[in-house]
């Protein structure tokens, strides 16, 4: 807990037990000869919402899969609440595709892995994501956004203390994404779990996260605290400035555009030509 000791303590005090504290130190992951993660160190406080951004192939999804224990790593330390393994199994992951079982009805999908008598619980959580009346449907009958809401309910029904989101909104249209942002933010505030969101959309990261972490070629190159009040208005100048700053950082590393001095949050977005670059790049990153 080197990075933000004070904040860790503060957040931990306000939500004592709902979120997992993550401690990642010098984690190295290799596929054969290729080093995908090069000594990643990151501390996440209980109940914190952290977004990891970066270009495709930068290693951000790999990091998430390590934390979900879906993959192993070669060296380093990964602690959940100070323990080496997630012994209570209260980590849940949401994937880019919903991964609903097509042969189970929506409600049974939500109740996956629960004891048989937990149907009421599943129904209640399905209501929380606004799909209370769709429990009897087959998943193939739902839209992409609805499927992801079911996947979210399936994760939340286990009362996870750490929710990992692996670009869960990547395949959705812009309007549905904004709805999902609101939903995820609301549920995160109500349940108090720690959330770790991997995304390539810088705007999405800034809209949701307490902290935005940029990974580039297996290294953390930016760790930015987002202090905007919630709910966050995407149109605000402060929002735009932050977005611009993160994007400038991404661009700087790849020489995609001249590194015009990244602006401090709170400043007005100035240079109009840079704005256009930023707008174009947002979908390319």
């Amino acid at each position: 807990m080197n990075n933000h000791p004070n904040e860790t303590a503060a957040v931990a005090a306000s939500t004592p037990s709902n979120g997992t504290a993550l401690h990642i130190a010098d984690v190295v992951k290799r596929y054969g000869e290729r080093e995908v993660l090069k000594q990643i160190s990151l501390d996440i406080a209980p109940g914190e919402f952290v977004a990891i951004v970066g270009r495709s192939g930068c290693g951000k999804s790999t990091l998430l899969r390590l934390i979900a224990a879906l993959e192993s790593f070669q060296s380093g330390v990964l602690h959940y609440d100070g323990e080496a393994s997630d012994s209570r199994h209260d980590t849940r992951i949401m994937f880019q595709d919903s991964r609903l079982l097509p042969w189970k009805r929506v409600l049974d999908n939500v109740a996956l892995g629960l004891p048989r008598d937990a149907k009421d619980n599943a129904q209640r959580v399905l209501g929380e994501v606004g799909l209370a009346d769709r429990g009897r449907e087959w998943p193939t009958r739902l839209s992409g956004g609805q499927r992801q809401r079911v996947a979210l309910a399936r994760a939340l029904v286990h009362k996870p203390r750490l929710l990992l989101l692996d670009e869960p909104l990547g395949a959705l249209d812009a309007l549905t994404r904004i709805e999902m942002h609101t939903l995820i933010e609301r549920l995160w505030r109500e349940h108090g779990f720690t959330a770790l969101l991997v995304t390539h959309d810088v705007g999405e990261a800034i809209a949701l996260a307490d902290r935005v972490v940029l990974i580039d070629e297996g290294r953390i190159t930016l760790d930015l605290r987002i202090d905007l009040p919630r709910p966050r208005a995407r149109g605000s100048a402060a929002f735009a400035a932050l977005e611009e700053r993160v994007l400038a950082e991404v661009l700087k590393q790849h020489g995609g555009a001249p590194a015009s001095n990244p602006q401090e949050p709170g400043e007005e977005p100035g240079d109009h030509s840079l704005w256009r670059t930023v707008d174009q790049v947002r979908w390319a990153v």
Partner: protein
Amino acid sequence: MSKPSSAIASRALPWLVPITLLVVWQLAANLGWLSVRVLPAPYNIAKAAWTLAASGELWTHLVVSSRRALTGFAIGGGAGLLLGLATGSFRKIETLLDTTLQMLRNIPPLALIPLIILWFGIDETAKVFLVSIGVFFPVYLNTFHGIRSVDPALIEMAKSYGLSGWSLYRDVILPGALANILVGVRFALGFMWVLLIVAETISATEGIGYMTMNAREFLLTDIVLVGILLYALLGKLADVAARALERAWLRWHPNYQPGA
């Protein structure tokens, strides 16, 4: 598309050709173009079938044949399913058995007939054995393939949601393989009748095959045709049953949903 009339038309359309053929056939027989020896008229065949049914003879043969077919299917299909599940689920068992089974698969079951007669003689066991061998491979291969083609992403998800062992098998792997298994079952059901016909034609004292072979000796072409049509009917029935299973078990599948 105007709804009711076009719906009736599209239902009737597949029957247009067979009914026309039937009418032409009957006319040809009535006009004396066809010898009754070669091809009796549909009416005569129906009459022969009615006589056989009324005397109870038809049912005896039908029951005997169906029992042979279904016993063989249960043994061969059951073994194929179990071995397919085993080799599909466990790499070790696959390495142990799959090469052998793939070699055996290349032997046409009908080529085994002389050997089967040597082993089991010409009684019931031989017929059931031949059917079992024949239905084993379609079920085995499709089950194996079905288990192997379950989406690994779904298995990964289920494991990360705490499923393992039997619950993983029941909730994810088996349902994921079911569509393929049912394809194997349909193939096997079709093949089942083919093998039974051959087995019953070789030697039998009961069954539809016996009935037709016996009728051949007495030049009763109409009864031979009753036997042939009966096989066609039974084959169709098996296919309908398999489709009904698909519709019931694959309700979730977009291809089997009404209006999809």
